[in-house]
Each structure stands twice: as C-alpha cells, then as structure tokens.
C-alpha cells in the first residue's frame, strides 16, 4: 500500500527524499537495533543518539544557518518526524521531538544571540539536551494557569515553581519553562525562560506510566529561586504565553506527522504479520473483516496525512494554519490511538507481552491524545478559531 504514502506524491523534493532515505537508514542501523535493550532498561542514551543525528546534519534543519541550522524548511522537519515515527519506540521519538521541534524552535525564533549560543548551537550538534517544562500539577491542558513564578530581579528573573510530566526531564541539560510574572493576570503576564539544569533545579523521576517508559520522564522538575538571566528569556517580557501558544501551533503539525507515521508503520507491520499467520486454514490477512478494518484505517491515515501536509504548506506559504494545525492534531492523535489499539488486538496473544513492539506501540501511542494539546483542547481550539464561543 506504499503507493498511498506521502513520499512520492509530489510534496517532497528529490533532495528531501534523499534526506529521508539517509536519515531512515541511519536510524535503522544505529538506533532501532538498540531499542529492545533500551526499553528493557527503561532509559536510552539520548546524548549518543543526538550526537549521531547532529553529526549527520539532521538536527534543526529548518533553522537559519547562522544559528546552527541548515536553512531548510518545515518540510525537512516533516521528514525528520516521519523517520522518528518509523522507530518502534516513541520514547525515542517523543524525546527527540521535544528537543528538536518543541524547544529548539523557540530559541531559534525568539532567542537572544546569547541563548542561541548557549542552548541552540550545542543542541543542534547533539551535545546538549533540551526539555520542555510546561505542565503543572493541577493545570493539565490549561497552560495559562501556571503558578510557577518568575520574579524580575536585576539582570534577570528568580524562578520558583514546580513542573510535572517533563518528557526527557531526566536527561535534559536545560528546560524551557513557562512562568507567570508576580501579580500578573491575563495572557500578557508570562515569560518563557531557558533554564539550565543546575543549582536550585531538582529533577525527580516520575511514577511508571503506561508507555514512554524509556523517555526519561521527570515526574517533577522543581525550581527553587533559580536565577535566570534576561538574555535567556525567549520572546518579550510578558509575552511568554503568546510565544508558547504560537509554538504549539507549529509543533502540533510536526507531532501529527510523527503520529501518522507511527500509524502507517503499524498498519503495514500488522498486515505483513497477518498475511503470514495461518488460522483456521488460511492467512488471517486474507479474511475480509480484518483486511477491511486495516484498509479503513489506512484510508484515514492517508487522508489525515494530506491534512498535515496542507498545514505545512500553509505554514511555509505564510498562510493561516491554526485551524489546520488543531484539526490534524486531533485527527492524528485519535487515529494513532485507534490504529495502535486495533493492531495490538490483531497481534493476538503475542501482542500481550510488554516487550512486544505492538504492545509498546499501543502503550506509547495512547499519549498523543493526552499530551501536547489533548483532544478536548483541540476541539476547544477549533471551536474558538471558528468563532463559535461568542
């Protein structure tokens, strides 16, 4: 069914396809073979993986070359995201996405030269790991309700507060942190700060989770009167929330591309497996019920992928992509969840083993609908953008 795939349908240039081939080969050779071991250990050497990607020139492809990027477009990041979706562990995929597509872009676009030098350049060579500390206990999807506070002081801010569920938090060298200003109210009362791991920063491992078991998820990251210099602020004073929300709109499209690539891979693997497995005298894949279930999901994945590409096209073309971003995040998250669930079931008893890729894929994929903009948040956003909440 590869003819339906995003590749070879005219969205990507030959150079981008070459990039895809090279990156996919690198991941297949250098990363995928280690995944069972990493998953069993509950952690992976993110620094090593990032160094390999940095050495290959695959990080920050869309950022300006003067910032350590490759001056490319969002399309190269789509390729990157789709290649990550080809990996059987989304602990790896998600951690790298946070680094390359959630935190790095904010520095590249809103960081001071000092922040670029301090955080972005080493991040793009893979020497330095970035994480995103945005959720708070009790706040959930309600980003504006953060209670972490950045008190302006001479030359910077004193940051105090507690963040939770930080993917890659156990591995990170620095955190992007959204905090409110003291006494501030409303959308213009926040700052976004890059905070290096160091004195005053306490990272605690999280409780075990359904999936993402090797993603180094920090249960809490506590900041206790951490001094952050003004030059590590991303975007303007008071504009932290606005900067963050704008970044969400982009990263959600990239997340959607990874989610859809995961769904794509699962459908393909499941069909291969069922075409081989014999039950009641015939390959299970030859049964029309199973086959149509896979084809229906395939159709949804392929059409959602076109929505993702359309969103990227609008982004690159300077058009409004906010609705497309929310729409494809919603669709892709639900699809990844549905596809992973169906494929897990179709793997039968073999899929029940925690270590089986189908099992892990399901456990990992369930997070899409919850994190980086829950499904409910996306529906709220779509309704708001359409002007339905007057």
């Amino acid at each position: 069914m590869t003819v339906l795939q995003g590749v070879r349908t005219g969205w990507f240039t030959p150079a981008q396809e070459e990039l895809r081939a090279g990156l996919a080969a690198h991941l297949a050779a250098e990363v995928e073979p280690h995944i069972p071991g990493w998953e069993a250990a509950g952690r992976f050497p993110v620094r090593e993986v990032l160094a390999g990607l940095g050495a290959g020139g695959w990080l920050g492809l869309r950022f300006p070359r003067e910032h350590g990027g490759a001056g490319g477009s969002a399309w190269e990041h789509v390729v990157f995201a789709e290649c990550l979706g080809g990996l059987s562990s989304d602990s790896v995929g998600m951690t790298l996405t946070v680094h390359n597509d959630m935190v790095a872009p904010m520095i590249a676009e809103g960081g001071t030269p000092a922040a670029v030098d301090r955080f972005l350049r080493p991040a793009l060579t893979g020497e330095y790991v970035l994480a995103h500390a945005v959720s708070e206990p009790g706040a959930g999807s309600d980003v504006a309700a953060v209670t972490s506070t950045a008190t302006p002081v001479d030359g910077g801010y004193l940051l105090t507060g507690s963040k939770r569920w930080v993917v890659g938090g156990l591995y990170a060298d620095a955190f992007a942190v959204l905090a409110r200003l003291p006494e501030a109210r409303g959308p213009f009362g926040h700052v976004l700060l890059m905070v290096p791991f160091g004195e005053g920063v306490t990272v605690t491992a999280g409780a075990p989770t359904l999936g993402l078991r090797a993603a180094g998820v920090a249960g809490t990251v506590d900041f206790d009167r951490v001094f952050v210099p003004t030059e590590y602020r991303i975007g303007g004073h008071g504009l932290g929330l606005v900067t963050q929300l704008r970044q969400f709109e982009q990263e959600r499209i990239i997340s959607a591309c990874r989610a859809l690539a995961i769904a794509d891979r699962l459908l393909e693997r499941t069909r291969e497996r069922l075409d081989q497995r014999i039950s009641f005298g015939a390959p299970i894949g030859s049964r029309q019920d199973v086959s149509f279930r896979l084809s229906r999901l395939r159709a949804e994945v392929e059409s959602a992928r076109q929505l993702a590409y359309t969103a990227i096209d609008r982004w690159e073309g300077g058009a409004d992509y906010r609705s497309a971003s929310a729409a494809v995040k919603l669709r892709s998250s639900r699809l990844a969840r549905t596809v992973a669930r169906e494929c897990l079931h179709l793997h039968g008893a073999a899929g029940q083993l925690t270590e089986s890729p189908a099992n892990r894929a399901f456990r990992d994929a369930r997070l899409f609908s919850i994190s980086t903009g829950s499904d409910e948040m996306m529906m709220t956003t779509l309704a708001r953008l359409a002007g339905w909440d007057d």
Partner: protein
Amino acid sequence: MTDTVSTATAPQRDLAPLVTRREPAANPDQDYADRVAAFVAAHPELLATDRWEDPAVPPVRELIGALGAAGLLRAAWPAGTPGPDGRSPRCLALGRAIQLHTAFAQVANGAPGAAVLTQLEVGTRLLTGHPELLDGLLDGTVTVSLAATEPDGGSDLSTLTTRVGRDGDRLTVTGEKWFISNAPFADLLLVLADDPDRHTGPRTGPALLLVDTRQATADEVEVTALAGSGHTGLTGSISLRSAPVLAVLAPAGQGLLTLMRHWIHERVMLTVRMTALAQAVLDDAVSGARHRQTFGSPLLTNQHVRFLLAELSAEVAEVRSAALQGVRLLVEGGCTAAYAAMCKYRASVLLRRVADEAIQLAGADGYRTGHPAERALRDGFGLALAGGTDELMLMQIERG
C-alpha cells in the same frame, strides 16, 4: 537555499529549494469564480430548490444548456495554452472545475451539482477522444450519461447481461441499465455491454458503446426516471432493445479497462464535490446552532455541540486536503486507483456522517424533507454507491 551547510560538525548537505506547490486550488481563478457567481445569480428559475425536489422534474437539460452557453463548461475543460502563471491547461481547467463543483454544492441543496458533474466529469470526459462530439457537450447543447450498472448488479460489472448484437451491418445493443445518473435527460448514452460474439473486436468481454437516444425509437431506447430517495429525479433506468450503436468507444475486452482508468478521475472529482457538500451542510448546521434556542440559550452554547462541530470540521478539512491532493495528482498524471479510492471512501463516510449529525442538531426541523442535511443524507447514500461502493473502494485500497 542552494548554498551548503557550514556548521563545523554537520556534513555538507544540499537542501532543495522551497517548492511552491502548483496546486489547482491555490490562487483560484477569480474571473471564473465571478462568472459562476453571476450565473447562479442570473438563473434563479433553474436553481430554485423546489425544482430539484420531488415531485418536480429537475431542469437538467436547461441547466446544462445554460452553463454551456455561458462558457462555464468549456472553461473547465483542459484545452488551449498554459495560463499566465505557467500553469498547464489541465491545471487551469481542473482548478476551475473545483470552483464549479464547490459553488454548485451550495446551490439548491447541492442537487444541480450532481447533474453538472455527470455531464462534465463523467460523460464528456469519457468522450475526450471524440472531438466531433466535444463541442456540443461543452456548449451544453448535447447531454450525456454513462450507463454501466445493471439492475441489482452493484459494483460487479464483470457479469453483464446487456449484450452487443448485430442487425444487418449495424451494431445494436440490448439490455437493462439501472440507477444511471442523468439518464432521463441524456442525448448520448455510453453503454457498457458484453460482447460474447466478438462484434466489436477480436476479443470477448465488456465493450463500451455510444448510443444516440435522439436517433433511436422510443422502443429501442426507453428511459424511466427512478423514484429514488436521493438524487431526486436525476437517475433513471434504461431499457435497450436492439438499440443502434453510434460508435464503439472501446472494443470488447477494453470496456472495463477504459472505465477503470476513467474512474480515477471521476472518484477524485466526486470527492471534491462530496467534500464541498459536507462543508455546505456543516456551515448550515453552524448557522442553525447559532439561531436555534433550547432551554433558553442558542444551541451553540452547548459544549457538546461545539465539540461535535469541531470534530466534523476537522474531518471535512482532512478529506478536502486529500481531495485537493487527488486533483494535483490528476494534473500531474500520477493519481493511482488506490489513492482515488481512498478519497472516494473517505468522502462517502464523511458526507453521511456530517449530514446525519446535522440532522440531529437541527432536531425536528432536520427531519423535514428538503432541509439541507436531510437532502445531503439521502443523496449521500446514493453517492456511497456512485462511482463504486465503499466496499469496492476498500478492495482497491487493499490492492494498493
């Protein structure tokens, strides 16, 4: 963008220049859009909703005639020179076809668009290789319809009962066709018929024939409008009794292949139309939810309603993206049967879902005959069969 990456650690890598997507839907042809809008404004009598709803006989011939006379069909037909921005004639034409089908999806509950699509994207397209007929078709003076399906035959066209015959030295065709769009209004019929006796070529199997209903007697070609719950008045059944064959469009054994190639185009354009229909129904539902009051507040103040509409709008956006990509692939000549089937399948599911939910949101009013959602649901069932059933689409997707 053509210069190389200069950071110390990264190897040299040539990144491709940004591709400006030459998509048919991008930079729509404003002149054409204005002409379509003017046409709609100028023909209220042809486009009144009640003329397209039972018991009226829909003015299909008049509409196609008027559209042709206004040059709107010809402008949406690939011919001539590239556009000023370097787009190919095919790209220009399909871009306009998208505009035409989208605009007509909003007219008279979308009903007139069904007739237009059959004329332009099915009949005329299958006669691309017949320049002597094209003029009349594009001028709207000649109407055309494709007669492939047989009574209760469904998607399986491999077992046809319609047969090619011979009467002296003229070819004839005999059989029954059923659920045929535009049949009650067609001058020309494209008829798929089995040819076991090799009248049309050296092989057996389905042939595609041209029958001119104007040159046939009422006994040779009898068309009856079907009382369908969807596409009211637009479909018909056809009895052919030794009807004279005007031309063999594809000889025995080639008929199905010709149609299979054609269906890629038809299914993509059907998807464009169905997505536009779904959007029109959704827009109407939003507007209804703003105005309809329940328990003292507009319906739209219900989170349940907003979430549902948001979900549906995401799905419409998704299928529209897929459809437009399909058109791009048509322009480039690279659309596969599987891709077109995927589009058609998704649109078919989408339209019925949006219509069904919109009926629910409208309550008793949605249950009224002619409510946009109600009509769309009835039409949607027919569209789930037209151009191939959902199940056939799934088989195509499976084959890849």
